[in-house]
């Protein structure tokens, strides 16, 4: 303790603490000032005053006061604790931990500090520290159940599963009475199941099973027990028992895929690592599922799973009744259900045959074909059967790459029943895949207009609009489903990430980097919030005893940054920063120079104009701010909390950060840590590191690419680019430079590149081209490398691209036989290559564009003859009617262009 205060002041100090706890901040401040008048150097009072200031949103003063207080009283645990609280409130957990540790050194018996510390430690995954804190807390209060469990969990996440299990057993030993009070039955049951899962995770399956049998009566989660037992029985090799347990579970829920998997596993019917089965396995599987289908005639899973493993004729025989069941019921999701089967060799062709047969038969006779040669003729079908068959067929043909045929069929469906929204969405999807985003957006909006209360239709329309870069329209449309129409705020609050990602991508395409960044950073913020949100669970889960869920949550949080949305957002943000970094900055000097050349009159006019412009801008900004403030006040009045006004709606400030590359690096480090083997991660990593001239980091990326994606075009380009940089380096001067060069040299030799880098890179490039001469992306990468290595070879490089021939699909694959295999994205990437960089060539780009326009007639990007851009948007009389479907988007949507 620091300086002793006289009794009167000591009481006042207690008042400060009490005022802080009861949030009577003004009262607390008053008391603090009263003490400080007499004892201006009293550290703890200064610290407490700072803490209160912090709660009153006066951060800088708060830190000043607390640090000053600490300076006067370094040996006070109060001061350190307060300092820790301050850091914690700013989410600076590492610094907070240090402060708490200092506080504990002074006052090791303080359980409150210890508890706070343990929360921070688990949040930061300082698992060893967490174990120690929980151990101390347990020794202080061994009669608390929560302390035992927390100690066990701490050991669990620290990887000491055996210790954790022992702790739980020890705790059970302290409970003399076997009976559990009624109010604690669930908690007790959770603890028992947690222990079983601990043992199972530790690989002690037998013990886990025994434990489960012994405690079964007291576990209230009856289904959980059975699932756990079935799994454990299989793991200890009692497959017969496991099998009957899984069969019993299937009787409870015959649509749980996990039960089927379990059943297969304990019958020795698991596929090999490449997903295939032996003929003997196939026969048994087939028999097994036949029995299950008879036993559970209503189970969808029992009917769908065989389609995965059956082949050839058997597959066809199983597919037919499956499809007609869905078609007759009019279930729109049939195609999504079958979609994964297209990637299995041969199945797409069979589906093609089956669907065509059904469609032909319905068209000619109104009946479906008989299931087999021996089965009786079918009855006449309902008129909606044709509709749903057309609907399926359109999606099927699109999946097979037959755009024209797919459009023809979907148009037939729309003519047959023009009120079916799903058909418009399918048509939108076909056109989107074919590259006509504007027409797709228009169609999706048409579907939306049929049911304005349908959020799914709204989201689909918004998604298509964003793909078509109609961001304003998309914003207005999305706002129809937000609270008070307060669009962005609301979508952000709801963490609507697909929207932010699509919106960011659209702004990126339009080179509006400010707005793009705003969207991408919003995603980043959501993930930060998710990490932050777990803080509450550390206390909550231990109190509520949901231990299994708690450990699962912690593990989920650990992998949060590997989720696709996060990665895509981070890649987007990094690409933004890189583009901003590369963007030539208009130098202020150049402007000045220009000014110097102007006459006096011109200068005056310019100044006047600038002043007027500035005034206008200011007036507009003031008006906007006032409006926003008024809106906020209004919202506050309504009872909602006033939101801070967004002062940078266009993200201009974001684009003006000084060091763009170091901003990018912040995102990059998380990306590389959690999704470091993804191509997209490594690509942006190379872009950032090469611009920062970090040779070793670039090398690391190249090595990683070689390891994870040895054949990828990106790997080749990065390797060439890297060694080209090395070739052109000036001789190393500093000692450290020399070491770096030595490392690179060793690596070079390891990759089989000789001293004469230019020659051996060229050799490597030729070999690469030869090895992948049938693949467009590889040819493009080789061509770019060729021109980079020797500008004299540019013409030849461009020829390499133009000489590419599109491979045609062979039978058996997802694409129909004879359909070209190039994708729109690949071809667009090649066009970019011919437009900028070492291969930039106007005539060459135009030639490629023309070729692609032929190949992709619906593509807007290549200005294909059937795309919306080419034809002027016709004024259709369909739209002549007044009124616009009660939506903000109605009239604008009509500008979307042609559909057919």
């Amino acid at each position: 303790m620091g300086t002793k205060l006289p009794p009167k002041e000591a009481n006042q100090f207690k008042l400060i603490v009490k005022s802080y706890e009861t949030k009577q901040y003004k009262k607390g401040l008053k008391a603090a000032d009263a003490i400080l008048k007499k004892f201006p150097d009293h550290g703890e009072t200064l610290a407490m005053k700072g803490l209160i200031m912090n709660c009153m949103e006066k951060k800088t003063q708060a830190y000043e006061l607390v640090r000053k207080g600490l300076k006067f009283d370094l040996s006070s645990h109060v001061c350190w604790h307060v300092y820790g609280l301050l850091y914690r409130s700013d989410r600076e957990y590492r610094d907070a931990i240090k402060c708490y540790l200092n506080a504990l050194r002074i006052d090791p018996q303080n359980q409150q500090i210890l508890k706070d510390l343990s929360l921070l430690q688990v949040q930061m995954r300082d698992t060893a520290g967490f174990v120690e804190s929980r151990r101390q807390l347990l020794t202080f209060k061994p009669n608390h159940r929560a302390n035992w469990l927390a100690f066990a969990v701490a050991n669990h996440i620290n990887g000491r599963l055996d210790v954790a299990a022992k702790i739980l057993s020890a705790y059970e030993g302290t409970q003399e009475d076997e009976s559990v009070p009624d109010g604690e039955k669930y908690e007790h049951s959770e603890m028992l199941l947690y222990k079983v899962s601990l043992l199972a995770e530790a690989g002690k399956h037998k013990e886990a099973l025994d434990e489960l049998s012994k405690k079964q009566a007291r576990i209230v989660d009856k289904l959980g027990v059975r699932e756990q037992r079935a799994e454990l029985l299989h793991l200890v090799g009692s497959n017969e028992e496991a099998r009957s347990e899984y069969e019993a579970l299937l009787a409870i829920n015959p649509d749980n895929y996990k039960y089927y998997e379990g059943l297969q596993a304990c019958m020795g019917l698991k596929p090999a690592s490449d997903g295939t089965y032996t003929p003997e396995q196939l026969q048994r599987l087939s028999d097994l599922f036949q029995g299950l289908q008879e036993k559970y005639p209503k189970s969808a899973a029992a009917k769908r799973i065989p389609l995965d493993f059956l082949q050839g004729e058997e597959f066809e025989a199983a597919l037919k009744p499956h499809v007609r069941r869905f078609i007759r019921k009019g279930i729109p999701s049939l195609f999504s259900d079958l979609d994964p089967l297209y990637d299995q060799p041969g199945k797409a062709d069979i589906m093609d045959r089956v669907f065509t047969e059904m469609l032909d038969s319905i068209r000619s006779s109104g009946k479906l074909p008989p299931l087999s040669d021996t089965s009786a003729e079918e009855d006449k079908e309902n008129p909606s059967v044709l509709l749903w068959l057309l609907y399926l067929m359109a999606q099927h043909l699109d999946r097979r790459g037959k755009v024209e045929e797919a459009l023809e069929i979907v148009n037939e469906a729309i003519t047959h029943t023009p009120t079916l929204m799903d058909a418009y969405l399918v048509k939108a999807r076909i056109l989107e895949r074919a590259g006509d985003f504007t027409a797709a957006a228009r169609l999706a909006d048409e579907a939306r207009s049929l049911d304005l209360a349908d959020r799914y239709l709204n989201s689909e329309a918004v998604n298509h609009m964003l793909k078509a870069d109609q961001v304003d329209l998309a914003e207005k449309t999305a706002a129809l489903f937000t609270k008070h129409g307060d669009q962005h705020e609301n979508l952000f609050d709801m963490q609507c990430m697909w929207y932010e990602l699509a919106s960011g991508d659209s702004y990126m395409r339009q080179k509006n980097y400010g707005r793009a960044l705003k969207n991408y950073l919003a995603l980043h913020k959501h993930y930060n919030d998710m990490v932050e949100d777990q803080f509450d669970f550390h206390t909550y889960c231990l109190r509520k005893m949901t231990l299994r869920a708690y450990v699962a949550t912690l593990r989920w949080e650990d992998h949060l940054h590997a989720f696709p949305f996060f990665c895509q957002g981070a890649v987007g943000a990094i690409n933004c920063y890189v583009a901003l970094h590369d963007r030539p900055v208009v130098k202020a000097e150049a402007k000045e120079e220009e000014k110097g050349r102007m006459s006096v009159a011109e200068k005056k006019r310019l100044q006047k104009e600038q002043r007027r412009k500035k005034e206008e801008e200011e007036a507009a900004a003031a008006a906007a701010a006032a409006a926003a403030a008024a809106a906020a006040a209004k919202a506050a009045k309504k009872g909602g909390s006033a939101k801070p006004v967004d002062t940078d709606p266009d993200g201009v400030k974001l684009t003006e950060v000084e060091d763009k590359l170091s901003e990018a690096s912040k995102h990059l480090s998380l990306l590389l840590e959690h999704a470091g083997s993804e191509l997209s991660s490594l690509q942006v990593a190379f872009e950032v590191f090469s611009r920062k001239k970090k040779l070793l980091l670039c090398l690391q990326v190249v090595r990683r690419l070689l390891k994870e994606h040895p054949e990828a075009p990106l790997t080749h380009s990065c390797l060439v680019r890297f060694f080209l940089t090395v070739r052109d380096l000036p001789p190393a001067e500093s000692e450290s430079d020399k070491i770096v060069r030595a490392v690179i040299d060793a690596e070079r030799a390891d990759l089989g590149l000789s001293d004469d880098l230019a020659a051996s890179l060229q050799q490597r490039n030729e070999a690469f081209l030869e090895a992948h001469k049938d693949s467009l992306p590889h040819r493009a990468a080789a061509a770019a490398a060729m021109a980079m290595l020797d500008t004299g070879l540019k013409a030849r490089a461009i020829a390499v691209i133009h000489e590419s021939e599109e491979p045609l699909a062979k039978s058996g694959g997802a694409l129909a036989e004879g359909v070209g295999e190039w994708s729109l994205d690949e071809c667009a990437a090649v066009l970019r290559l011919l437009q900028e960089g070492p291969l930039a060539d106007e005539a060459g780009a135009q030639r490629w564009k023309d070729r692609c326009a032929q190949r992709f007639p619906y593509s807007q990007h290549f200005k294909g003859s059937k795309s919306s851009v080419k034809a002027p948007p016709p004024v259709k009389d369909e739209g002549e009617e007044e009124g616009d479907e009660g939506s903000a988007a109605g009239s604008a949507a009509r500008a979307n262009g042609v559909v057919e």
Partner: protein
Amino acid sequence: MAAALATVAKAKDGSHVSLDGVRDKNVGQLRKLNAAMFPVKYQEKYYSDAMAAGEYTKLAFYSDVHVGAVACRLEREAGSGGGSKVYIMTLGVLAPYRRLGIGSLLLQHVLGQCEAEGSGVREVYLHVQTNNEEAIAFYKHFGFAITDTIKNYYRRIQPPDCYVLSRSFGPTSSFQPNGTAAAAGQ
């Protein structure tokens, strides 16, 4: 994507038919349907009348697919009598779904509403082109009778004349129909 549906019945082939009201959120479906079935372009007034008619305007869903509709206008009569008339503006079913009894279900629904106690409806009437024999037979089957002929009622189609078909409701009138469906525009 089908809305929560109110009335449920069976079509002739045993399929499930349900009726749903028209609101500003789903009126787009009625527009789509009319554009597909009738040569006439309907004004906004038509749609506001249809929605204002409440239970007298219905969309028909056949196996959850929207295939038909009846749209009426309520006409309050002037004077102290207090009765009202129902004017059937359109009644129609998409071509592939005809002959399944869906039109009859829609008309029966309207007639049922008229007959319901306290509806205050004295008469239900509509216009049919004079050569549309199928439609005339359909309505006659449901107790309608030709009460008038209007010359040159239609402007762009031949023949331009129409009949007025109507049916009155007295305290004792009740009729058990069993008719066939057909598309019949105004």
